[in-house]
């Protein structure tokens, strides 16, 4: 029974990692941009939710609904004003810019909100749980996993069922030809980053409800997101979900053996997947 419990907790944890990774995966899939500031943008969104909740006196759920469109605009402007200027054949400038952005966001948050840890308080639901036979699972972790699946499903629908998604795929495959067909890649990129920021806001909501956050905590959470994206195969959204689950389950089983093995076993799973399938489970593009 302990195995079932471990598996279940690992899957739930994987949901959180997949949610962290979904925005990263989207941005990478569309424009091959590795956003090193993604973790810090999640923390920025968490502070935004916290700030909106405090200023307007609303619950974090309402604050999330207000913060999400704001973060969309932040993402849009960031792409239009900053990232678009450095995107090109060379992959180094965008990396450096996002790295710099990460430092800027951390220090701006530190200046504005101090180093104190904060948490989004959701009330009694935080500690509620469901009894499924012999195992108990928390309501919030369940919601996290459900949200991750829903986000991936919706993003996939967007990619393969809408004209915007067609534009995403076209730009991703061949920017020049897409331009010839009347697509403006800069706008498409801005749209993608905006949507990624909305997903990041959702991730921020669950992160803030699960644990404390402070300005410096972003990069630590980013590593698992990267691993999830790479295990799943670059550019594949369902792959990202699978990648998140693999890391979550590996960590849970590692911890069941000995907590010293928890983080390490996630990394070991990552290495094993890379050895067996160097391009991840479901690589979408060939580049």
């Amino acid at each position, binding site marked *: 029974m302990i195995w079932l419990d471990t598996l279940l907790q*690992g899957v739930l944890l994987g949901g959180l990692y997949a949610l962290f990774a979904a925005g990263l995966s989207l941005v990478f899939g569309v424009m091959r941009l590795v956003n090193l500031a993604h973790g810090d943008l999640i923390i920025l969104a968490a502070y935004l939710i916290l700030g909106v909740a405090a200023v307007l006196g609303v619950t974090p759920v309402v604050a999330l609904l207000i913060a999400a469109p704001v973060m969309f605009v932040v993402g849009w402007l960031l792409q239009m004003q900053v990232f678009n200027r450095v995107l090109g054949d060379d992959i180094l400038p965008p990396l450096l810019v996002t790295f710099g952005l990460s430092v800027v966001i951390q220090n701006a948050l530190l200046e504005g909100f101090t180093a104190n840890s904060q*948490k989004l308080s959701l009330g009694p639901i935080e500690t509620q749980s469901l009894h499924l036979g012999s195992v108990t699972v928390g309501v919030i972790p369940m919601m996290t996993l459900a949200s991750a699946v829903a986000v991936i499903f919706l993003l996939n629908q967007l990619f393969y069922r809408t004209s915007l998604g067609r534009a995403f795929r076209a730009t991703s495959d061949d920017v020049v030809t897409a331009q010839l067909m009347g697509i403006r890649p800069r706008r498409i990129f801005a749209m993608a980053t905006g949507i990624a920021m909305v997903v990041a806001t959702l991730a921020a909501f669950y992160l803030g409800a699960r644990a404390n956050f402070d300005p410096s*905590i972003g990069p630590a959470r980013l590593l698992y997101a990267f691993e999830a994206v790479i295990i799943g195969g670059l550019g594949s959204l369902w792959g990202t979900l699978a990648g998140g689950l693999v890391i979550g389950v590996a960590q849970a089983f590692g911890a*069941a053996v000995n907590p010293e093995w*928890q983080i390490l076993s996630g990394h070991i799973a990552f290495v094993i997947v890379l050895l067996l399938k160097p391009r991840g489970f479901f690589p979408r593009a060939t580049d």
Partner: protein
Amino acid sequence: MFTRRKLLKSGAALAAGAFALPAMPALAKGAAIKIGYVSPQSGPLSAFSQADAYMVAGFLKAAKANGLDVEVIVKDSQSNPNRAAEVARELISRDRVNLILVASTPETTNPVCTVAESEEIPVISSVAPWQPWFIGQQGNPADPDSWQPFEYVYHFFWGLEDNVSVFMNMWNRAQTNKSVGALWPNDGDGNSWASEVGLPPVLAAAGYRLTDPGRYQNLTDDFSAQIGAFKKGECEILTGIPIPPDFTTFWTQAQQQGYRPKLVSIAKALLFPESVQALGELGHNLTCEIYWSPAFPYKSSLTGESCAELAAGFSKAAGRQWTQPVGFTHALFEVASDVIQRASDPTDSDALVTAIQATSLDTVVGNIRWGKDNVPPFARKNVAKTPLVGGQWRRQADGSFDLVIVENGNAPEIPLSGTLETLS
């Protein structure tokens, strides 16, 4: 008319002014005694340094009233050990300070003390348990026979053994099944708590059972394995020294998965009211160590203020609740002032060291005297211990938290302000 020439002129004047300003106090008070103060004012540890500005201003005012000609140069370690060593070197070689004060966490105190010891500049250090401070600076921390005392660096705080005994005293007061679950991370603090000088031998001697699932990494996202182990071991007492985000993750998950201990004694993570407030209702009746609170019966030797007055002054100036390091930031300056007044020549390192060694000062954190027999002989010269008691966070009707003193076995002069309550 605003001409280019004028602009250049005023620009130059502005630049000259900007450069001259920081240097001016040094020129004006050439004979002043210079004190360097290093603390983590920015970065993840900055919560420890909230009282810096207030205490420095208070010290300068009190020093002036006492007729002392002092200057304090404040440096920020940015919560980074490398930066701490760098600013210590700057203080010594560029600012030519006579005395250095350093506070908060081994990450700040140790690099500063190591630099100052080699440069032969006296240091008074605090707010780090003495073991990581003393042993952490040794060439070979693993070999007790090689440990050497220091000549120029002196530390006052409590040690691991005090924290262990405070927790044990609290647990002995409650009716439990004497089964303890331990949440110890794989860092300096976690490893020392789990070691032979930490909790396990004391627990065994007192007839307690320990469930220690093993060292985990900081910033872990899932504690199901530990919760499972604690449930299986029926641990009615929970202890540990996690960082605040990890404790929140753990404690929320523990509630979700139905682990409800009777007593929770957590070191480090529950130090600041903000961390406890972040837990909301879940923070009620958690216990922790207290090394300073407004209820301590001591007075400042510098200003004559009681602990309550000091805390109130700080709260008013900073617009926030008192925190435990507040008293120690003040005490550092108390000791500095006392030492400078007693030293035969406060600009001479050796005279200052002689004065530090002879210190016996009743400060706002209790009596500070080096060489007492409550410290093991190898560290006695450099370490002075201050009292430690046990506290319990009580949630008020308005959602804020009060830290109530519920255990004073090691320092009976500190009055209790409540009785220990169990969680269930």
